[in-house]
């Protein structure tokens, strides 16, 4: 206080005489100024120190959630080809070698593969790394043996990382510990970036001097003057702005950092912080992620030349981008190798050997991270219902999904190829043709694949989830299920006659058949397999719209469909994903199971946060479902989808339904085999008319997918109270095998027709209906 008062008095005096007062004022001022600077500086240092420590010790990085595909289970008897396994392992970055010697390698022969797996810490237990000899027999795994020749009953490969959930600035990284760093990584970094790293106190004058000297001597900018610690400070604390003030903070912060933490801690932080590239909007940070991004394998497996390349890139990730600038990158890498040899970290022979290596960078397209935007979209939507965005993008959560990359690849190929074939055939009108597809396993209700459009890697409009289109005849199984529950049978005769319904708003609904004809009296199963609109509309109006609406909801529709008569012919708009929910229940014999894309979410350490177990609820009785499954088999054997068996073998039982919306704007097919259920939509985003129907478009993609997938055939359960009878199709009466026009049709006990026709039992031809004979199981 006294000082303050004293400082005021000279000023008062100065008004009277200026000169002497200045002389007496100046020293005092300087003293005070330096004191203030000292205090402010001290406070500043304390503040900086607190900041340095808080950031370094607290949460250092926003770690995006990691999303994994399903791990491939390997067991004898499994349906898997050498090509499938090779593809999966390539997705995991396994190297094909002459002789497996370390984790992440494989030997490929024609019918056998040797694999040295990496192992993985699954939430339900560790899978150890192991050597396996896998023998194939055609499409199946014949045996798996370990390196001692013993049978391995079950092995789980590590899951492919398919994506992450990033913060707004799109930073992505894979944290590594210093002890996970491959040989020479630390040495190379130190040799190239900061030779006095272990000696200096965060800032190195010698380093700056030497860098200048090296640069002068070599005639180019080979070394930078700032230490690793300074670089870390710059990236770590001062990222957003690059003002002079911030630049000035770098030195004291580096010193503080060095004072507080060990060299190892600083180096580890550096390894994870450094920026090494850009993948679209995603910024590649840290050596762990860079290793995956450039070499598609974990950092532990990198070789000397690869380590040298990454270290070389620190200086200018885009300038030395090995994908776009391979020559520049090679030169830089070789310089790093030279520096390593100069410092004695590697021998001359090692240097020469490494310099001879190709860059070995994988094509960006071969990386599976980011390859499944449509599936990831589904996963994210589900996660966002349960987790705050911040937790998803920064807590490093691990998300285990059901995505099957092998199935996904086949579905993509089938849809993309079909669309391009349709474009070739129909020309300009379908230039913008698009599609969406969902594949599930009907037994587990897991979503195996999602295709959001023609450009499968493009993260845009996700048609599988968001293209809500009128489903057309895909609704018919729901109408028929409701009718069968009301006592109709497959052989009930329906009137396929014109129908006119006046709606409450005065509008008239007057549907027509696709061929614009009436077909008279038709058997119910025939009405479904030939997809007759008039008889379906008659039937639906007879049983009541409420029954149909209720059936759709029982099958799994989560919204309330609009109860207009046009609902009966599929006026309701649904996405392929929603349709999959309905058909999933049909394929699972009436057991409704919510479709699941996520199996488990854990913390970064593997602690379980949420799981999504199988949930089942029988919503439609098995016998009724059996009847509609019969009719849906007829669709593909004799009805609107019979073209399926031009490509599929007779023995592969499938069932499904075609769909075409009004004015032919949407082409649909939904169908299933024993272990796959797939829904395909093909159409135009602007809702334009198509020059083909459901069977001309979506069915082709579906068939192509099933052809590639070679799934298990659909085999219906044979419920207790179902009996098969020979029925005369024209009358719906009982008939006999030998009679013309007779076919075997299943009935729920007690609903079989009473009346019988007599065809004379002589010489009439028998209708061949082999298709369903190997369909159901009977004991």
């Amino acid at each position, binding site marked *: 206080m006294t000082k303050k008062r004293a400082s005021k008095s000279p000023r008062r005096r100065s008004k009277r005489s200026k000169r002497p007062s200045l002389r007496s004022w100046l020293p005092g001022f300087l003293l005070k100024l330096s004191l203030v600077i000292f205090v402010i500086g001290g406070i500043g240092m304390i503040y900086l120190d607190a900041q340095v420590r808080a950031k370094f010790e607290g949460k250092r990085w926003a770690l995006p959630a990691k999303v994994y595909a399903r791990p491939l289970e390997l067991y004898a008897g499994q349906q898997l080809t050498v090509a499938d396994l090779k593809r999966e392992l390539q997705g995991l970055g396994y190297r094909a070698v002459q002789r497996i010697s370390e984790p992440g390698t494989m030997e490929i022969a024609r019918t056998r593969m040797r694999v040295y797996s990496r192992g993985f810490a699954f939430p*339900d237990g560790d899978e150890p790394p192991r050597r396996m000899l896998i023998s194939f027999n055609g*499409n199946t795994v014949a045996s798996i043996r370990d390196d001692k020749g013993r049978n391995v009953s079950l092995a789980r490969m590590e899951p492919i990382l398919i994506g992450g959930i990033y913060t707004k600035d799109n930073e992505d990284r894979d944290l590594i510990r210093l002890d996970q760093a491959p040989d020479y990584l630390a040495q190379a970094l130190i040799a190239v970036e900061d030779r006095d790293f272990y000696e200096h106190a965060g800032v190195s004058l010698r380093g700056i001097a030497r860098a200048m000297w090296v640069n002068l001597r070599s005639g180019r900018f080979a070394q930078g003057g700032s230490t690793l610690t300074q670089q870390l400070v710059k990236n770590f604390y001062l990222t957003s702005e690059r003002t002079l003030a911030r630049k000035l903070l770098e030195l004291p912060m580096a010193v503080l950092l060095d004072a507080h933490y060990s060299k190892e801690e600083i180096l580890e932080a550096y390894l994870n912080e450094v920026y090494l590239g850009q993948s679209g909007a995603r910024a590649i940070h840290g050596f762990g992620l860079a290793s995956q991004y450039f070499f598609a394998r974990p950092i532990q497996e990198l070789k000397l030349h690869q380590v040298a390349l990454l270290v070389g890139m620190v200086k200018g990730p885009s300038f030395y981008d090995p994908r776009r600038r391979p020559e520049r990158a090679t030169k830089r890498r070789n310089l790093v190798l030279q520096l390593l040899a100069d410092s004695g970290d590697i021998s001359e022979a090692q240097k020469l050997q490494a310099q001879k290596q190709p860059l070995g960078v994988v094509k960006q397209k071969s990386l599976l991270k980011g390859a499944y935007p449509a599936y990831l979209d589904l996963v994210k939507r589900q996660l966002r219902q349960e987790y705050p965005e911040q937790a998803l993008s920064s807590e490093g959560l691990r998300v285990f999904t059901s995505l099957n990359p092998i199935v996904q690849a086949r579905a993509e190929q089938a849809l993309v190829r079909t669309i391009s074939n349709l474009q070739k055939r129909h020309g300009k009108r379908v230039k913008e043709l698009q599609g969406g597809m969902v594949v599930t396993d009907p*037994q587990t209700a897991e979503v195996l694949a999602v295709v959001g459009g023609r450009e499968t890697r493009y993260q845009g409009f996700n048609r599988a989830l968001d293209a809500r289109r009128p489903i057309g005849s895909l609704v018919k199984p729901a109408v028929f299920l409701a009718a069968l529950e009301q006592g109709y049978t497959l052989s009930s005769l329906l009137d396929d006659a014109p129908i006119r319904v006046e709606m409450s708003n005065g509008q008239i609904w007057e549907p027509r058949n696709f061929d614009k004809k009436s077909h008279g009296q038709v058997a119910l199963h025939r009405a479904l397999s030939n997809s007759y609109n008039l008889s379906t509309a008659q039937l639906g109006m007879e049983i009541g719209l409420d029954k149909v609406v209720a059936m759709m909801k029982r099958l799994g529709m989560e919204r309330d469909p609009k109860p207009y008569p046009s609902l009966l012919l599929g006026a309701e708009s649904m996405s392929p994903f929603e349709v999959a929910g309905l058909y999933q229940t049909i394929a699972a014999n009436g057991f409704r199971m919510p479709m699941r894309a996520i199996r488990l979410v854990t913390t970064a350490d593997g602690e379980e946060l949420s799981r999504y177990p*199988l949930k089942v609820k029988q919503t439609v009785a098995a016998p009724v479902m059996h009847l509609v499954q019969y009719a849906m088999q007829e669709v593909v054997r004799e009805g609107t989808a019979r073209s399926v068996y031009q490509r599929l073998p007779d023995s592969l039982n499938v069932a499904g339904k075609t769909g075409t919306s009004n004015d032919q704007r949407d082409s649909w097919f939904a169908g299933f085999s024993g272990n796959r259920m797939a829904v395909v939509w093909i159409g135009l985003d602007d809702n334009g008319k198509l020059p083909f129907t459901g069977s001309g478009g979506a069915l082709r993609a579906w068939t192509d997918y099933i052809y590639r997938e070679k799934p298990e055939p659909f085999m219906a359960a044979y419920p207790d109270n179902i*009996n098969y009878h020979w029925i005369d199709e024209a009358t719906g009466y009982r008939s006999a095998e030998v009679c013309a026009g007779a076919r075997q049709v299943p009935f729920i006990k007690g609903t079989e027709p009473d009346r019988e026709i007599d065809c004379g039992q002589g010489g009439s031809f028998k209708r061949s209906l082999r298709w369903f004979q190997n369909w159901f199981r009977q004991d």
Partner: protein
Amino acid sequence: MRKLLPVAAALLLAGCVGGGANQVVVVEERTPAPARPAAPGEVVTAPDTPGVTVTSPVIDQPVISTTPSDPKSSGSWVVTQNTAQSYRTNPAVVALLGSAKQQMDGGSYRAAGSTLERAQRIAPREPEVYYQMARLRLKEGEWKQAEQLALKGVQVASGSNEMQRRLWLLIGDIREDAGDRIGAQRARIKARRL
């Protein structure tokens, strides 16, 4: 039919692998639908399957197609003969069911749940998987799910009276636990009839 005999013999040998000790299960056979026209009112019965009777594991029996298999059409589609496999004899499923039981008995219900789902993905038509899933849910006190899983098991056990009986008995226990005594009795009566 001749093709079936060696398969059946192999299955008889493998019959004791996996599952509880007293699991007597039946081979299911998908034969063609009844070849005779049924007289009105007559209940169509399954054709006899000599040589394949009661004591072998549940299996998706290879389809014996009524026509000679055409190698051109079947080709690489190993659907008529080879993909049909016994899951119960599949060591992977046996191993998973074994560790699930251990995990369940040791009280690690979450791990048991994960293990059973792995088994289900490999062998979705194996009733034992649903039996164990239902048992797990029962232990967790989730009676509704337990019952539904057991019902799903009953459906996939179609053809195996013994397995269906076990499942109905389990449903009886589940309903009993949930306080539904009448429902429990009904389930037990069903089990007795099998």
